[in-house]
Each structure stands twice: as structure tokens, then as C-alpha cells.
């Protein structure tokens, strides 16, 4: 990309998946591009880049956010968890990830990181959701393979098994 920014760069400090990172960034760099380009964490996908599709959803200080609608400079001193950070230390899938695999909660997989991160945040705040609440919670993520029924089933299963799970989301 041509260097057209006329403004100063800013040094930021962000904890990403438990690892401290100090980077110098331009103000207009989105958190999503920061994660993908600066951190090499390409699990965070970019679909629409204007807050509609939800593919870039990450946890910012524990809350699910659109990483394309946050500038990296706004995440200074924050804690970010991406889909890569949801697995256990040995790579074991989280409850939500395992449920998506088990219940065919994905087809092409492009939207999956956003769904998995969103669902992780949703179940952390609402561990015993009704089916209606699950459907409402999923409205912020788009899946163009029309795999929603599998996704709904996966969230139901993740919610029902969370109590007995070994791995549960980010620390």
C-alpha cells in the first residue's frame, strides 16, 4: 500500500491472546488489519469492513466487538482475544469451537471465526440461553453458505455442555 498518510505514527501497547505487543501504527489502521498484518493473526477475517458482516469479531477487554470498527490506536493498553486465542494451550478446541465442528456449524468457514468469538462472548454473559436468545445473538454475524441451522444447533450444544467442558473460552 502506498504511504499516503501524512500524520505521525503512534506507539501502542496491546495484549493479544496473552502476549504483549508494542507496535508503531498509523491512526487509521483498524484493529482488524493490525491483528492480521502486524500480528500475523489471520484467523480474524475481513468481509465487509464496515461493521455489517461480523467476520472480524474479536474480544476487546472481554467484550465482542467488530475489529473493523475499532482503530488499533483505540485498543492501546487493552486486552484482545482473537479466534486463535480461544483454544487451550495444547491447541485443544474450546467448547464453542468443538460444538461448531460437531454440529456442522460451518461450511466454507469464512464467517466462522466471527461466529465463534461472538458466541463465546454471548455464552459467557448468558450461559443458559433460550433458543430465541440464541437466534437473536446470532443476528450480528452473516453466513453466506446459509448454514444457520447448524450454527444454532452448535450454540445450543455448546450451552448445554459448557458445564462439563474442560476448556471454556479465553482465560
Amino acid at each position: 500500500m502506498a504511504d499516503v498518510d501524512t500524520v505521525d505514527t503512534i506507539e501502542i501497547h496491546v495484549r493479544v491472546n496473552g502476549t504483549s505487543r508494542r507496535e508503531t501504527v498509523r491512526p487509521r489502521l483498524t484493529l482488524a488489519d493490525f491483528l492480521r498484518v502486524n500480528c500475523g493473526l489471520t484467523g480474524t477475517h475481513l468481509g465487509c469492513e464496515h461493521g455489517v458482516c461480523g467476520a472480524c469479531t474479536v474480544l476487546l477487554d472481554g467484550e465482542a466487538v467488530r475489529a473493523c470498527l475499532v482503530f488499533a490506536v483505540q485498543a492501546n493498553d487493552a486486552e484482545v482475544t482473537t479466534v486463535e486465542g480461544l483454544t487451550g494451550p495444547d491447541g485443544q478446541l474450546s467448547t464453542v469451537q468443538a460444538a461448531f465442528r460437531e454440529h456442522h456449524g460451518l461450511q466454507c468457514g469464512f464467517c466462522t471465526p466471527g461466529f465463534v468469538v461472538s458466541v463465546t462472548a454471548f455464552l459467557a454473559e448468558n450461559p443458559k440461553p433460550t433458543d430465541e436468545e440464541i437466534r437473536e445473538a446470532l443476528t450480528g454475524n452473516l453466513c453466506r453458505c446459509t448454514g444457520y441451522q447448524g450454527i444454532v444447533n452448535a450454540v445450543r450444544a455448546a450451552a448445554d455442555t459448557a458445564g462439563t467442558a474442560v476448556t471454556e473460552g479465553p482465560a
Partner: protein
Amino acid sequence: MKPAPFTYHAPVDADEAVGLLAELGDEAKAIAGGQSLVPMLALRLASFGHLVDLRRLDELRGIERRGDDTVWIGAGTTQATVQRSDEARAAVPLLARATPFIGHFQIRSRGTVGGSLAHADSAAEYPAVALTLDAELEALSPRGRRTIPAARFLTGMWSTELADDELLTGVNFPVWKGRCGFAIEEFARRSGDFAIAGATVALRMDGDGHLDRCAIGLFGLGPTAVRARDTEAALLGSDPLEADAEEIGRSATEGLGSVPSDLHGSAPYRTRVGAAMVARAWRRAVQEALHG
């Protein structure tokens, strides 16, 4: 697309923030949650030489009971915080009930009360709620603080009473007491979309079961949220059980001057949807006032 380049400022307090806004003039824009601003920047519908980030302004966050009849909500308080707040749910039920309609939970985790009001989208929920409840908005500029009634705050689509160097710092929501009912209804094609039309109703009954306070708000039906003041005035003093909800809906949406028409719906369609939303909200508010 990527936003155009800008210079980033992260002032430590509100005085510094308005100082920057004054110094930088119309080249500068305040950014709070950024959930409306950043898409506009990304689509290059807007661009600013300077963004003044409000993230470090802790004085702009919080939900506080102030005296017996007011709840103050800091402009920087996120919609997610409002949704989780017992105080908001108990004291300003209409605001709490409007919150789940805003975007999706991933938007509400960043989006703020003040941002939604200052952005002033005509189909947004919070401006309609502030207008319906007669909230008062607090603004700060280098010239000092002032209070703006919600009815004067909204001046057009995406435009407000705020000057370029003025910052919304908080909102005082009146606490309605007594036999009250509150409801919000909206219709959107998909959950999380801006409403095609929506309505808010707040009412209070006196000891004889007659209406002694009544507010009907409409959103998505013009450049700003509006109150159906003629309809409200006609209803005051009446027995709400004798009122015809459909007729109230028709009356509230009668004579609207500039209902938008687009591919989501023609102006007459939106008006009919608006009337239906008023009728639904009315019935629910009356039921709550009667039965709690």
C-alpha cells in the same frame, strides 16, 4: 475500503477535548464508540483531518441517580452498560427497553448513549427515547456548560444543536413515577437494522384512571424523531381504556411532512407501519400502567 488518513488525539479530560475541537474547527470530529462514524469513514462518506477520541474521558461514563427524579447517564456510557444496568431498567424503563433494538450486541459493546444522540440518525432509538421522556442533554464547550432540552437538540438528519466545539457530556433522564407505562415498538426487515418505522409511548394515569401525562414519539418517519403532540394533547385527561389504539396510531402519524421513501418502503407504507407501531406501543404501555 480503508478510512482516509487522519491525525489522532486522545485527550485526558473533557476540557482538553473541547479545547481541541475549538482549535481544530470543522476539520475535527469527536469519536466515542465509532459504530456509526467508522463505517462512514470506511465508506468515505465522511472524512476528517482529526479525530478526537473520547475513550480516556472517564468523567463521561456512569449511570447515577441524581436526586429523587433524575437519572444521569454519562454520554460515554456504552449501550451494553445501559442494558446491564439495574438502575436504568428500574428508573428509565423506556431507555432500557429501547437498547436491545440498537444494532447487535457486538455494536452495543462499543456504541455509546451520547454517540447515538449526537449522531442523530432519524431512525435511531435513543433520540426518540430522549425526546419522549423530555430528557435534558448536557453540553460542554470552551464557553462553559449548558443544558439543552431534547426537543431542541435534534435539528435535522444527522444534525443537532451542538456547536462544532461542543461535546455532549451526559443526559438527565426524568424518572416518571406513579402508574406509568412505557413501550417501544419498531419494525425492521432484519433484527439489528435501522427501523423502517418505530414508536415510543410513555404515559401516566392519575388516581381516577385518567391520563395526566402522555408522550408519543415517532422515529424513522422524518429527518428527526418527532413527538405526536396534537395526539398527546387530545388524549390528556381521557380514560385510556376507552381509546382506540388504531385511531391513536392514525392520528399520531397524520400530516407528517417528510416521510422518507426508499427501496425499503414508500412513504405511505412507512406511515402505515408507523401507525401500527404506535398502536402496539400504546396497548402495551396502557397494560403496564394498569397492571404493572
